[in-house]
């Protein structure tokens, strides 16, 4: 499927927003969350550029399942490290462990059901963390209401992740063409809400 000029523009804006977030960072963070956020936005940036260069067909690559899991895992790790210091090490171990499990199931061509289960667990837990943590922080008065943009970004990451993971596992929710059509816009919306969430709440 050929990529339209509009798709390229949407992807370019998404990559520029991701580049901006990496460059400005977030004030007062220690090394681990800074690295975690940089990985999340770095994956968006590099993936956006590769999509512009190679076209949407690159999404058929088996590596997409690993790469698309990196965004929620690293973002959730950054959030937990930042706001839930009691669980920071446990969550980091969880993130690394499940990422390794995804890599192993992909490299060893594990049965489809197992690969799918692993992806659902990872996207489910990481997605819920990104979605719920900002909501709880806002409800308990520990963050400004504008931090809810991060929750919105988390929901969109979940949607993106599920669409790509199921497509990659051969059980797509939408048709191949439909996913390719909505993906650039979804990627931009996701990046924009996350950047807005971090920028407006600091």
């Amino acid at each position: 499927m050929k990529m339209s000029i509009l798709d390229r523009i949407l992807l370019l804006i998404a990559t520029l927003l991701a580049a901006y977030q990496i460059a400005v960072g977030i004030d007062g963070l220690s090394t681990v969350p800074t690295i975690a956020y940089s990985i999340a936005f770095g994956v968006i940036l590099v993936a956006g550029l590769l999509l512009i260069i190679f076209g949407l067909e690159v999404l058929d690559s088996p590596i997409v399942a690993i790469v698309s899991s990196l965004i929620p895992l690293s973002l959730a790790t950054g959030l937990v490290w930042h706001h839930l210091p009691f669980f920071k090490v446990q969550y980091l171990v969880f993130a690394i462990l499940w990422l390794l499990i995804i890599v192993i199931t992909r490299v060893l061509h594990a049965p489809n059901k197992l690969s799918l289960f692993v992806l659902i667990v990872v996207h489910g837990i990481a997605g819920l963390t990104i979605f719920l943590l900002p909501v709880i922080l806002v409800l308990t008065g520990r963050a400004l209401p504008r931090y809810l943009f991060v929750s919105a970004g988390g929901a969109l990451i979940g949607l993106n992740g599920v669409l790509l993971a199921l497509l990659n596992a051969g059980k797509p929710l939408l048709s191949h063409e439909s996913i390719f059509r909505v993906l650039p816009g979804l990627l931009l919306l996701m990046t924009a809400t996350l950047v807005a969430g971090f920028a407006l709440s600091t």
Partner: protein
Amino acid sequence: MQFTTTLIESSEQMKKVLTKIQLYWPLIKSLQTGLLVATGMAGYMTVRCPVFNLPTMVGLFISLVTSISGSTILNMWWDRDIDAKMRRTQQRPLPSNKISPREALVVGLVLSFVGMGLATTIDALFGLIIFAGLFFDVVIYTIWLKRRTCWSIVLGGISGAIPILAGRALGLGSIDWIGIVLALGILLWIPTHILTFSMRYFADYKAACVPTFASVYGFTFTRATIAISSVLASLAMVGAAWGIGMTWGFLRLLGVLSIGLLLLAFTMIFRPSEKVNFGLFKYASLYMLSSMMLMVL
């Protein structure tokens, strides 16, 4: 009546000038010249603020445009017999006889001397570096090595790395290690560009009997060379960025872009294909442009 005749005559003169410019435009390889000029300006801006040094910036711009255009025209003049044999270059103004070789030679020499003269007037060291670039491009690369060895791109690449070194030396007043590392970054990026084209137009180069890495060592070795030189180019750019004192945020961004380049380079080595090759070439060009922008910001 006389006024109308003069008007018609001057309009025809104008048309002739425009036609000439249109003919010379492909002869100076506008995109390549533009990129090289941009690296020279970026080299200067890593040392000095362009707003407070506008006259020098204008001088730098004009001297780079004229000297690079001049050397490119001289290169085209010398290689017109090769260009005539290659499908990709057959329609260039010299092999298609749209411009006479003598005229191209004169224009190339005049532009080169104007560029060098202006550069020397601005600063003697800057002029010397520009002269070295011209010498490497026209004499060492084009006349001496291009038809003899595929390794000509290494020495020829030095001329491509000269503008950024010259720009920084003009701003600094001397040559420092950062300028050399920046030049090294460009030198290592050049194989990504040239070798990709040598594989894409393999038959053309073979027909013209120009030795390339692909024809001498094969495609696998050439692809590995592209991948390794891209990685080394990114390391050089990160090293130079650190030396310049780039902020942590920009360094982080450059690091992320470098990781993307590394991933593509590994893909190129372990899963080589023309698509990945051309993708790496595009990404590496984008990487260079981005790193230049980050350095001048």
